[in-house]
C-alpha cells in the first residue's frame, strides 16, 4: 500500500474542496445554523420567554410517553429546566447527526464525482496509484473533515448550551452519556454511511450535483429519528444510541464494501 500516494490524494482533495465556495459554504453554514443559532434561539426562549400552561401540558404528555429511565433522569427539574433540557439535550440530538452526514456527503461528492466533472480523473487513472489506494485517499479526504467538523461543532454546541442554560441550571450539565455515545460512536458511523452512499452513487453519476443530491437521501433515517422523538414513538437513550450506532456501522460497512467493488479503473473511465 502506497501511503505517500494515499496522503497526497487526501490532502489534494481536501485542498480542492476548501477552495470551492459552493462546496465550502454548506460546510460552514449548516453547522452554524444547527449548532449555534438554533441552541441560542431555543435556549434563550426556554430561559426568558413566558411559558404558557398549555405548553407545560404538552410537555407533561410527552414526558409520560418516555421510558422510565429517562423520566428518572429528568425528575427534580422545574418546568423551565425541563423544557430547556428536553429541547436542547434530547429533541435536538438527532439534528446533530445532520452535520457529519452532510460534511461527508458534500466532500465525497466533490472528491469522487467532482473529479470526473472537472475532467481530472483520466490523468489520475494513468498514474501509478491502484484503485484501492485512490479509494482510501478519497474516503479519508471526506472522513477526516466530517469527523473534525462534527467534533468541533459538538464542542461549540456544548459551550453554547451550558452558557445559555447557566442562569437556569446553575451548573455544567452537558454533555450527558447519550451525547457522548452519539458523538463518538453514532456520528462516525453516519459519516461512513454518507461516504459509502457517495462512493456507490459516484460510480454511476458524472457530476457533483447529481452525487450530492442522491447522497443526500442518507438524511432520511435522521429525519425519521427526529419525527420519532417528537411524536414520542422512540427516544434516544444511551442504549438506544449504542444499538443505533451498531446498525449504522453494519449498513455503512456493507455500502462501503459494495462501493469499493464498483470503484474500478475501467468503470470510472467509462463515464469520462
Amino acid at each position, binding site marked *: 500500500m502506497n501511503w505517500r500516494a494515499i496522503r497526497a490524494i487526501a490532502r489534494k482533495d481536501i485542498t480542492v474542496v476548501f477552495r470551492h465556495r459552493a462546496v465550502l459554504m454548506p460546510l460552514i453554514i449548516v453547522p452554524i445554523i444547527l449548532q449555534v443559532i438554533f441552541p441560542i434561539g431555543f435556549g434563550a426562549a426556554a430561559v426568558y420567554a413566558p411559558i404558557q400552561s398549555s405548553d407545560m401540558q404538552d410537555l407533561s404528555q410527552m414526558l409520560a410517553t418516555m421510558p422510565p429511565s429517562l423520566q428518572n433522569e429528568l425528575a427534580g427539574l422545574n418546568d423551565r429546566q425541563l423544557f430547556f433540557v428536553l429541547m436542547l439535550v434530547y429533541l435536538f440530538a438527532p439534528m446533530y447527526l445532520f452535520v457529519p452526514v452532510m460534511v461527508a456527503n458534500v466532500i465525497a461528492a466533490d472528491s469522487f464525482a467532482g473529479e470526473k466533472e*472537472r475532467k*481530472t480523473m*483520466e490523468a489520475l487513472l*494513468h498514474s501509478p496509484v491502484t484503485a484501492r489506494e485512490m479509494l482510501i485517499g478519497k474516503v479519508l479526504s471526506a472522513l477526516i473533515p466530517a469527523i473534525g467538523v462534527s467534533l468541533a461543532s459538538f464542542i461549540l454546541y456544548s459551550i453554547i448550551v451550558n452558557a445559555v442554560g447557566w442562569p437556569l441550571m446553575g451548573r455544567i450539565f452537558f454533555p450527558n452519556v447519550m451525547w457522548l455515545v452519539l458523538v463518538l460512536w453514532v456520528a462516525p458511523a453516519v459519516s461512513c454511511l454518507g461516504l459509502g452512499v457517495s462512493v456507490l452513487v459516484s460510480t454511476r453519476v458524472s457530476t457533483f450535483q447529481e452525487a450530492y443530491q442522491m447522497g443526500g437521501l442518507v438524511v432520511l433515517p435522521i429525519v425519521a429519528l427526529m419525527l420519532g422523538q417528537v411524536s414520542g414513538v422512540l427516544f434516544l437513550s444511551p442504549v438506544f444510541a449504542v444499538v443505533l450506532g451498531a446498525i449504522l456501522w453494519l449498513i455503512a460497512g456493507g455500502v462501503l464494501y459494495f462501493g469499493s467493488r464498483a470503484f474500478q479503473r475501467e468503470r470510472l473511465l467509462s463515464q469520462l
Partner: protein
Amino acid sequence: MTPEPVIQTTGLVRHFGDLTALNHLTFEVNHGEVFGFLGHNGAGKTTTIRILNGVLAPSEGSVRVLGLDPIADGPALRLRTGVLTENPSLDERLTARENLEFYAELNEIPRDKVQSRIDQLLADFELTGRDREKVGGFSKGMKQRLALARPLLHNPELIYLDEPTSGLDPVAALHVRQLITRLSIEEGRTIVICTHNLVEAQRLCHRVAVLEQGELIALGTPAELARKFGHRQRLEIEVDADQRDHTLAILNKMKGITATLGEDQHVSVLGAAHDRIPDLVKSLTDGAVRIYCVTPAEPSLEEVYLALHGEQEEIL
C-alpha cells in the same frame, strides 16, 4: 541480440458492448522511437493508449510494455510511463506548482528532489513566475504546457502524448516538437504520439500507424507509406514554353494521367507512379518535347493519409 521492443501487441481486440473499438491490432514500438498513431476521431487511438498503460483491459490479444503486462503490473508499469491525456486533466483550483507536486507524490519522486525538478520543468515550459497562480486563470496554451510538464516529472522511459501541440501557438508548438526530438534522440526515450496534425507526424515520427475504426490499415515510416500508398504521385515537368500545349496533349492521352499547367508555367502531372516515370519521359521525347527538368513531388503524409481514407480527390 535484438533488444526486446518497448511495446509489443498481438491481436489486440477491445469491445465496448456491441462496438469493436480495436480489431486485432498487432504492432511493435522500438526503444528510442517516436511512433505516431494517426486516425480520425473514434479510430481507436486513445483506447490503444489506455490499454497500453493498463487503464483498460483488452478483450482479446496480448500486450507487453517495457517487458510488463499492463494489467497485472499496472502500478509498476505506470511508474515508468508518462501520459499527456487529450484533455489537460489539470485541477483548476490548484496552482501550477500544486498540480505538479501532487503528481510528483504519486510518481514517488524523492522528496528532496521534488522542488528542483518542478522548477526545472516550469522553466522548460516558460511557466516560471506563474507557478503560484491557480490553473483556472491560465490560457489554453499555458494549461497545455503545464499538462506537458506533468508526464515528464518522473523522467519516464516511455511517454504517450495525445495531441501534444493542441492549443499551442506556433512558437510553443515548435518548442514542443524540439522537446520531443530531444527526448527521443538525446535521451533515448520512447515516445508514442496520437495526432491529427499530419505535418507534425511527418516531421517527428520515425514510424506511423494509421487506424481506421479500430483497424490498423497502414504501418511504416512516412517515406514507406508514401511509396506504398501514394499512388497519385505528382511530377513537375519543365518544357519549352511553346511546347506546353503539345506536352499536355501527349500526357493526357496516357491512361490514369492528368496533366495541367501550373501557376509557375510548369506542367504538373498527377497519377504517375514511380515506376511509370521512365515511360512517361520516353513518350514526351518520342513526341519531340524538349525536357529541361523532371521533379517528382513525393506525396506528403497528409496525402497518404487522405488516400488511405479515400478522400484524396478533395485536396488535389
